[in-house]
């Protein structure tokens, strides 16, 4: 029983981190029409940047976090300027995607160059564990769940409820009509890149004490891809639920096997593609049109 609860907590926490990646992924797909293969690198950069501020420059945690978030947004904007803008009118529409592959390599090399190749181990945001009813739950996972909850809720509210988000949504659904009605699509797109990088970066900061800071952090991106497909491609809600599902499946699978959990995750992905290719939680397909 206690094993089940802690696996659930861990799975939920990781699922929510995947959801941060996946939401950014979906927002970018909608805004520029192509998959961002550097999404995992956003997360990795997030971990490095916050480590840099808090441990290398020895800033207080809260100042480091605030500066990190500002830096994340700046990296997002810089990413758009360097890896999207130059190829936005390319004849081959997949050029944008290929550029994100290149960006992914550049990010890894940049991380090693700036921060050094040694693995870095930040301590937990709040060390120790919560002991109740014979359970022992690591605070780090609880914090991840709390922070992710508010970030996910915030992004969701922005896009579903607020005027600014509505304009971003409109611009991503039909750029031409948006321009004609007067929505500055460059701005909405820049905001999308900044938000995508920022939420992925926050994910990186959160998981750094668990996975350590190294360039292999980017592999979490594959979980996010799986979550997006399982949830229903193109829908924010689908991405969130799909990723949480992936997180839980992954976590429960460690109860049985530890070495082959990738197999379980991608088994779930394949199974979804076979029995329900449109995903489980997405709004109807036509919604994307």
């Amino acid at each position, binding site marked *: 029983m206690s094993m089940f609860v802690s696996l659930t907590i861990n799975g939920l926490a990781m699922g929510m981190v995947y959801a941060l990646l996946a939401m950014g992924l979906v927002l970018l797909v909608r805004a520029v029409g192509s998959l961002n293969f550097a999404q995992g690198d956003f997360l990795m950069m997030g971990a490095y940047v916050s480590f840099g501020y808090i441990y290398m420059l020895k800033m207080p945690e809260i100042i480091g976090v605030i500066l990190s978030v500002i830096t994340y947004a700046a990296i997002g904007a810089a990413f758009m300027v360097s890896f999207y803008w130059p190829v936005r009118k390319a004849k081959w529409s997949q050029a944008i995607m290929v550029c994100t592959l290149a960006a992914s390599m550049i990010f890894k090399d940049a991380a090693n160059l700036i921060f050094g190749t040694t693995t870095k181990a930040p301590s937990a945001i709040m060390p120790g564990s919560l002991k109740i009813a014979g359970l022992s739950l690591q605070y780090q996972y609880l914090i991840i769940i709390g922070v992710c909850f508010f970030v996910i809720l915030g992004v969701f509210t922005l896009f579903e409820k607020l*005027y*600014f988000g509505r*304009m971003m949504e*409109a611009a991503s*659904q039909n750029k031409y*009509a948006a*321009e*004609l*009605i007067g*929505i500055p699509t460059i701005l909405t797109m820049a905001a999308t890149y900044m938000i995508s990088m920022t939420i992925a970066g926050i994910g990186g900061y959160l998981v750094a004490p668990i996975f350590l800071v190294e360039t292999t952090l980017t592999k979490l991106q594959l979980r996010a891809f799986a979550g997006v497909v399982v949830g229903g491609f193109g829908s924010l809600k689908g991405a969130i639920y799909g990723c949480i599902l992936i997180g839980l499946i992954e976590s429960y699978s460690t109860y049985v096997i530890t070495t082959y959990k990738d197999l379980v995750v991608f088994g779930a992905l394949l199974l979804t593609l076979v029995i329900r290719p449109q995903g489980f939680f997405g709004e109807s397909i036509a919604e994307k049109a």
Partner: protein
Amino acid sequence: MLEIRDLHAYYGAIEGLKGVDIQVADGSITCIIGSNGAGKTTLLKSISNVVTRKGSITWNGQEITGLKPTKIAKLGITHVPEGRQVFPGLTVRENLETGTIGWHGFFGHGRYEEDLDRVFQLFPRLKERENQKGWSLSGGEQQMLAIGRALMARPRLLLLDEPSMGLAPLIIEEMFKKIVEINRVSRLPVLLVEQNASLALEISDYAYVIEQGRISFHGKASELRDDPRIVAAYLGQFAGQKGA
């Protein structure tokens, strides 16, 4: 008043407009009629600056040729594009809200309830479908939504690209009545582009005929209606069929 002088437009090596002069007088409905590929859409795109072009376009004396599309929209020159182009994943109400961006601004506090009411009064069908997603509307409803969205922009000039496209004859007539109503209520000038020449000439004050990127005739709509050359080419029994 909108004044266009010696306008040329290009798609790479193709010249879509080859020197066009057009005026839209205050408070009037002006129509551009012409057959497929004549350059009607290109003309409206040129006004909104979403196509490569050269020449002069002035709006109430102000040169707007160099302005970005969003800037032109902000001036109140509101373009309802060919094929409606409503936002498929937004509801009717949300689609209408996007129309306000030009005067509301991203973080503005302007209220648009009255604007919404006015659009809903004009198109009660939209009120009934308020929370339905754009993609699920019929062609006629989408056209109403596209026009409604434009009205939310508090336009000072309305550019309409083939509002009759793909609609049943009865719906087309209803749509044209609404266009007249929009024009009459606030003296809003309308530049209407149409293949359905007979209806367009009926509701317009002034008309231009465009053929292969050039204006071939222009004059009062009532005069063009009786011009034998126009009748033969655009209003004849068979000519009328090709637009439908």
